C-alpha cells in the first residue's frame, strides 16, 4: 500500500536531511501512528506520500505506484485515492458543512446525483446529521474536525493521512475523533496519523513508527508513545 525505500529528503535551506535513508512498508488496512518531536520529519513524510514534494533520493510507492516516475498530470489521480485531515481543519468559512464536503466532490467532477446521495451519508457517519447547513464558525472544534474528516473520506480514499488531527482539541473530543478514525479504518482504509498525543497512542495500541531527526528510531506493532516523553 505504502512503501518507502531508502528515502532521503534534503531541503536546500537546511544542512540536515529532513528524512535520512528511511525505509518502511505500511499494508492495506493498517492504522499507523507516526510520532516524533517537531522537526523529526513527520510532515515531510506526509508531503512525500501526497507528492507535494519529491524525495532527494529513494523510492516512494503508494498503491503500488512509484511516485518518482509518475507524471505531473497523474498526481491529481493519486490524490483522489487519499484523504487528508489537518490540525487546523482547513474548512472553507463561507461554505456550509454540506457545501464543504460537496466541494471535494464537485472539483473532481463527480455527478450532482452522486453528490446529493453521498454527502448526507458521510455526514451521518461522522455524526453531523442535522448540522448540514451550519457554517464552520458556528461549530465546535470537534465538529469542525468531523466536517474535515467527512470531506477527506467522502470519496472513499484508500489512505487517510491525518496530521495531528487532535492537536487543537480537548482530550474528550480527541477520543471521539479517534473513534471516528478507527471506524474509518475498519472500512478497510489505511490510516496514517502523525501525532504528539501520547494518551491516544497509549490507549489505542496500534503500530507506532517513531521518527527522530529524520531517521526511523522505532517501528513497533501495538506500540506505546514511549518512555522518553
Amino acid at each position, binding site marked *: 500500500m505504502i512503501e518507502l525505500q531508502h528515502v532521503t529528503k534534503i531541503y536546500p535551506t537546511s544542512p540536515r536531511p529532513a528524512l535520512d535513508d528511511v525505509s518502511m512498508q505500511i499494508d492495506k488496512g493498517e492504522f499507523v501512528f507516526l510520532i516524533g518531536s517537531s522537526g523529526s520529519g513527520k510532515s515531510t513524510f506526509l508531503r512525500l506520500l*501526497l507528492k507535494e514534494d519529491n524525495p532527494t533520493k529513494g523510492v516512494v510507492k503508494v498503491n503500488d505506484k512509484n511516485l518518482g516516475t509518475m507524471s505531473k498530470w497523474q*498526481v491529481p489521480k493519486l490524490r483522489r485515492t487519499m484523504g487528508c485531515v489537518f490540525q487546523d481543519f482547513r474548512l472553507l*468559512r463561507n461554505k456550509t458543512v454540506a457545501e464543504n464536503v460537496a466541494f*471535494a466532490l*464537485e*472539483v*473532481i*467532477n463527480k455527478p450532482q446525483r452522486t453528490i446529493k446521495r453521498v454527502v448526507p451519508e458521510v455526514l451521518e457517519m461522522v455524526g453531523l446529521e442535522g448540522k448540514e447547513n451550519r457554517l464552520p464558525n458556528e461549530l465546535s472544534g470537534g465538529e469542525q474536525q468531523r466536517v474535515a474528516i467527512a470531506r477527506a473520506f467522502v470519496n472513499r480514499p484508500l489512505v487517510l493521512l491525518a496530521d495531528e488531527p487532535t492537536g487543537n482539541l480537548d482530550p474528550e473530543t480527541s477520543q471521539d475523533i479517534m473513534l471516528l478514525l478507527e471506524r474509518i479504518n475498519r472500512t478497510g482504509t489505511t490510516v496514517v496519523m502523525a501525532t504528539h498525543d501520547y494518551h491516544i497512542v497509549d490507549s489505542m495500541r496500534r503500530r507506532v513508527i517513531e521518527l527522530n531527526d529524520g531517521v526511523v528510531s522505532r517501528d513497533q506493532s501495538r506500540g506505546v508513545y514511549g518512555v522518553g516523553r
Partner: protein
Amino acid sequence: MRVNFVLSEVAAGLRRNLTMTVAMILTTGISLGLMGTGLLIANMIGDMREIYYDKVQVSIYLTDDVSDPQRDAIAAALEGSPEVRNYIYESKAEAYERFTQQFQEQPALIANTPEDALPESFRVELVNPERYEVIAQEFPVGENGVEDVRDEGDFLDRLFSLLNGARNATIAVAVVQALASLLLISNSIQLAAFNRRNETNIMRLVGASRWYTQLPFILEAALAGLIGAGLAIGGLVLTKVLFVDKTLAGPIKAGIIPPVDWSAIAAISPIIAAAGVGLASVAAYVTLRLYVRL
C-alpha cells in the same frame, strides 16, 4: 466540467478584487483602443495611397504669361517622351473648379481666392514614378513658360511618412500600455490566487485537475480582456461618430481623406477582441505557471 461551479468562481474572483479588475479592464481597453486606432490609420493610409498615387506623379505648372506655342511645345514633348504614360492639361478655369470642389466646405477660402489665382498645369503620369528627375531636366524651371516642376510623389512621400509615423507612435503607445495591462493582469491573478488559496489548496489535496483549478483564474482574465476589448471597440465607434464623421466631414467629402467605414471597424473588432482575450489568458496562464502553486 461543472460550468456553474467555474462561472461562480469567476464571478466571485472578479468581485473580490473589484478595484484591480477595473484597473485591469481600463488599461486593457485603452491599449486595445490604441491598437485599433493604429490599425484604422494603417487602413486609411492604404486607402489614401490609392486615392493619390494613382492620379498624379509630376505636375508642371506654367507661368501666367506662357504663350500658346510654348504650351504646345510642352504638350508635344510630353506626347513624344517615352517616360510619360499619360498626361492631362488643366487650364486656370479647370484648376479653379477643382479647387472650389475640394474646399466646398470652406466658402470663405473660396471667396478669397480670385478665379485666376491658380496656375494652369500639365499633370503627368510617369511610366516609372521614380523617374521624376528626367522630367525635371527636360523642363527647366523658368524657361519656356515653366513656372515650376513639382514631384507630387515627393510631397506624398512626406505626407505618408508623417501618417506612418502617427500610426507607429500610436502602436508604440499601445504596446507600452499593453505591457502595463499585462503586468496588472499578472498582479491581479496573483492576488486572486492568494485570496483563494484555501480553496485551491483543498482542490489540490482532493485531486482536482490542474485545469479545473486554473480555469477560473484564466477565465477571469479572459473576461476582463473581453470587456476591455468591448470598451476599446466602443471607443472607436464613438471616435468615428463624434470626431471623424463630424470634424473631418469636409475633407472626407472632398476626397482628401478617405472615410472611416463601419466595415473597417467591423473588420478590426474581432482582431481587438481576440487580442484582448488571448493576451489576458496567456498572461494569466503564465502567471499561474510561474508564481502560483496550484
